[in-house]
């Protein structure tokens, strides 16, 4: 099966003053796969996906999405092309109801027709398992449910590429299990780029793993290849105190 490229970066670089957060990253993302982006704290993972989604402007280099150079598009235009993004620090509309939150996410592409939109919202909330909380104010939800809500907001956009920045951070073990099941259920039709620290989540969901270390792409491969990779082990165990 010939793999199709959904997104590609060429020489993507970000420097903050003298600090090089990302250095000449060449990366391709295959359509339909779950790709995990891992690396020690400070490796530049959030900077990298920030440049993909347009939240962070690149110092140089290109981002190509579906054969189109999107390097100079503002974030909202990239989202309109089919990228969705969940924040590392939960970002939802805390003052609005759960239903409203998802309706805002789905409502950009759908017409304001109430019934179709409501059905979509209900279906998405059902998918992440918080449909019974639709009428609650989002800010009143537990932390875990807020994370799920943010994932629902991503799914509701029916993205071609779904970028999740540390989605399981702070979740309880049972919630992590549900999350793994959710990601698996999406595999095949939604391309996912997952930044993740929890190795169990990575190993159980990812088809492909990319490892960033000190702003550079250290290794790429299947989960089995990556766990056997000596330089990855060194990066994780040898040079950082991050567990």
């Amino acid at each position: 099966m010939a793999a199709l490229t959904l997104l590609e970066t060429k020489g993507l670089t970000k420097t903050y003053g003298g600090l090089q957060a990302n250095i000449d990253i060449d990366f391709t993302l295959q359509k339909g796969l779950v790709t995990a982006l891992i690396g020690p704290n400070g490796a530049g993972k959030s900077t990298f996906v920030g440049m993909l989604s347009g939240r962070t402007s690149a110092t140089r280099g290109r981002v190509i999405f579906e054969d189109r150079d999107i390097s100079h598009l503002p974030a909202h235009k990239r989202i309109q092309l089919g990228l969705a993004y969940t924040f590392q620090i939960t970002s939802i509309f805390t003052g609005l109801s759960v239903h409203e939150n998802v309706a805002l996410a789905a409502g950009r592409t759908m017409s304001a027709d109430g019934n179709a939109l409501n059905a979509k919202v209900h279906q998405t909330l059902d998918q992440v398992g918080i449909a019974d909380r639709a009428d609650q104010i989002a800010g009143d939800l537990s932390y875990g449910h807020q994370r799920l809500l943010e994932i629902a907001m991503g799914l509701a956009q029916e993205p071609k590429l779904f970028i999740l920045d540390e989605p399981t951070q702070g979740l309880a073990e049972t919630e992590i299990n549900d999350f793994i099941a959710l990601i698996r259920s999406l595999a095949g039709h939604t391309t996912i780029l997952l930044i993740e620290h929890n190795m169990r989540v990575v190993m159980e969901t990812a088809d492909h793993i990319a490892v960033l270390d000190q702003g550079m792409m250290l290794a790429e491969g299947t989960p089995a290849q990556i766990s056997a990779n000596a330089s990855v082990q060194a990066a994780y165990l040898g040079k950082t105190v991050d567990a």
Partner: protein
Amino acid sequence: MTVARKINALHFGILLFLLACFFILPAYHVGALSRIMVLAIYAIGLNILFGYTGLLSLGHAMFFAAGMYGLGLSIKFLGVSVIPAFGIGIISAALLSLLVGLLALRTVGVSFMIVTLMFAQTIYLVVLYFGEYTRGDEGFVLQQAERMLLGFDVTTEAGRYFVAFAAFSICLIGFAALVQSSLGKRLVAIRENEERARMLGYDVWRYKLLAVIVSGTVSGVAGALYALLFGYVGATFASVQYSILPLLWVLLGGAGTTIGPLIGVAFMFYLIDASSAYTSAYMLIAGLALVILTMFAPRGIAGILRTKVSPWLP
């Protein structure tokens, strides 16, 4: 009753009540209500930007004044009748808000407040500078003959009340429809979490600009209407005082609610009215009441209703 029905019932109930007031209340209060309704339109204008989009403008008097002078000057110097003059007033406010929006939206937060305040001061000084035409602080009066609306005399108590009522009805219903539309919801999304709205694919800047234009234009409608109904055009209405007043009305009544603007204007009007019966230092009492309200009800009167009684309030 569904929420949408409740909301409609509330708004039509308020309009029905205002209509009934004309027949029930003594002349003094009928006159007061005419003024309150016109100023409530102004407060609705500010509420769109401040209450719903989360942008605090400290210079809305410039839009009110644009409507007022647009109408007043075109009647006085171009000799046009009320309807085209009203159109000129609205267009003036719309163009000014487009221009101010384009420039001021380059800033955010406190800078936005300061920039809008400065633009409003500029407009105020322009009004004074061209005193030859505007008569500056002294202002000018529009004669009864110049204020005939399609042969309808708006200078009588009844004429004034019903024109104010009709305009307020249109603005309240239009405003309620805006708030419940997808556009209104997107504005609230920007108020709640701008970065999230952007990362859902919304062009935040364009929505903000649209909010400034709608807000400024509605404020201009109020200004033009005020000049028409009360027959006076003066620089006081372009001064900083008239940028702060609508903010107080909206805060008192409840920012981000549809009924807040009317409640806020009426409350403050009658507060000043009642306290001035006892003392000439009535602003002291009004100020005290404002401080107490902001301390104990930071979301305003309609905000209390929303949290305590009816969470569905739009």
